[in-house]
């Protein structure tokens, strides 16, 4: 959903320049002052810290859900549609399930959706982008027309197409959402790749006889990492939204799973009499997506100071 802004804003990303293998770069970065400087900037970025805090709290909640949820999230009881009280902090739904416990367990699914979908999109998109950008010519033409074709189905439409093909189910929905985000990764990686290809260190590597694969993995990939990271963090926000929407529409996770989108579609018939069934899962989605967006915006400001406007 926000891939549109992600694209527009991340295109301007300046690739960081390192010419070593991905692994050793990460290891090296961990010791260089430059890494500390970046981390320091991130920690001084107020909204980024807020966003990261929200995500970390949610991740902890998701991990220890069985310890903090007062009830079994899918257990039906006779306490049907009870308003929020000390017994049921967020009330109970039409089947007597504790909304608070369901919201807590829902964090597990939403975070999984965000990370797995973006993981799929980032890995496939990066491979397509790097190959297209490095080889250029016909390969580039074919790959990019394919990406253009995927982009002819904007946002949730592509996810719906894949979901319709694979059939319902939570994991199919994750793949479907992942597909919807492939184009933005492929395009950003490709354009960064085209810039880096012209730098002298790549030329030097080529002159010293490095193979295409070596150049891609050792020289180009480490330099597009920061763009990928920014896009991924903003993509997580979008993926959580699209994932919840798929479940809401009935082509994602299936009942009785404690998933926020499903809770909303389950609660819809009772909107008149039991507002709490719908208010809390929606708030949970909003807060989670807000956290991911804040973290992503902050990361972009920090990794690409040119875009930072404050």
């Amino acid at each position, binding site marked *: 959903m926000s891939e549109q802004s992600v694209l527009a804003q991340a295109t301007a990303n300046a690739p960081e320049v390192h010419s070593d293998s991905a692994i050793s770069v990460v290891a090296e970065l961990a010791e260089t002052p430059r890494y500390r400087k970046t981390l320091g900037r991130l920690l001084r970025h107020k909204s980024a810290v807020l966003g990261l805090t929200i995500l970390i709290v949610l991740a902890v909640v998701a991990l220890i859900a069985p310890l903090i949820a007062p009830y079994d999230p899918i257990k039906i009881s006779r306490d049907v549609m009870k308003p929020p009280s000390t017994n049921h902090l967020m009330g109970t739904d039409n089947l007597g399930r504790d909304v608070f416990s369901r919201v807590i367990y829902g964090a597990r699914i939403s975070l999984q959706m965000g990370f797995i979908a973006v993981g799929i999109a980032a890995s496939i998109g990066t491979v397509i982008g790097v190959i297209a950008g490095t080889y250029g010519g016909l390969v580039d033409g074919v790959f990019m027309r394919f990406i253009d074709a995927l982009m*002819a189905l904007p946002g949730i439409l592509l996810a719906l197409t894949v979901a319709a093909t694979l059939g319902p189910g939570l994991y199919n929905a994750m793949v479907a959402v992942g597909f919807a985000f492939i184009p933005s990764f492929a395009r950003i990686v490709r354009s960064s790749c085209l810039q880096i290809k012209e730098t002298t260190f790549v030329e030097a590597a080529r002159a010293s006889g490095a193979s295409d694969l070596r150049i891609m993995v050792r020289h180009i990939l480490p330099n597009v990492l920061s763009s990928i990271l920014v896009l991924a963090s903003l993509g997580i926000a979008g993926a959580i939204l699209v994932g919840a929407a798929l479940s809401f529409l009935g082509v994602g996770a299936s009942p009785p799973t404690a998933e926020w989108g499903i809770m909303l579609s389950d609660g819809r018939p009772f909107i008149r009499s039991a507002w709490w069934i719908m208010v809390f899962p*929606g708030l949970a*989605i*909003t807060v989670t997506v*807000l956290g991911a967006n804040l973290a992503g915006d902050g990361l972009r400001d920090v990794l690409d100071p040119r875009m930072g*406007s404050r």
Partner: protein
Amino acid sequence: MIVRFALQRIAMMVPVLFLISVIVFMMIHLTPGDPVRVMLGRSGASADEVENLRQQLGLNDSLPVQYVHFISDLATGNLKSIRTQQPVTQEFFGRFPKTLELAILALIVATVLGFLLGIIAATHQNSWIDTLAMVVSLLGVSIPSFWLALMLVFAFSISRDWLPATGTDGPRALILPVTVLAVEQIALIARLVRANMVEVLRDDYIRTARAKGLKERTVLTGHALRNALLPSITLLGLNFGYLLAGAVIVETIFARPGIGRLIVDGILNKDFPLVQGAILLTAVVYLVVNLITDISYGFIDPRIRH
């Protein structure tokens, strides 16, 4: 010159159209299990029924033959919905005006408000107005549209009987759907316009204009705005696509008979020909809109033609 540019653009669209049609065509073949059994439901389908539907869909032919049939059937109105037996083109174009109406209204609202919010934020950079505008637009991109829709229905249709929650009667029925569809776009446009504007305001010619002693108002409207708006306009075509996509959710919640709802219902009913046809036609509409935006942008800004 502009004709050549337009022809180039159209030529570029051909392979994309071909690929998207292949992707959509392959849906039925990539679906796990026997698509015919999926469409007829898990149980209760006799061998005859299965064979009939297989014949009707031409699934016994080779893939290229099937592809050609799929495209020519769609074009000639012979591709029919399994459920209603109506031609897919008829189902699609019968409902298309409803979606178009929604998308165009939302596009107008989102463009006006988004640009306004972005410009106000950029001209009051780093003040509380800017912060407020950006917090609002951050919320706008973070709120799930289906939840926003339900909350608005709760507030304006259920708690108070101000606006209709569903249906297509009259302009009042459009207020809530258009609002929901526009909110995310307003937020996206505002963020982008602000970023473009802030960038432009840093340029040398703005400093020159100010140094010349021009009024701040003149600098903003005459110099900054013009240059900041141009790149934002290219987004209109893109936005239209996202509005088509957003219509899926809005039409489902507000029970509006548009193409978004057609596709979702088709998916839930396992009506593969309908889903394939409707999705392909949506893609074509979106590509054509983008083509028109591109070409008209080529008119406005000659630099883009190269």
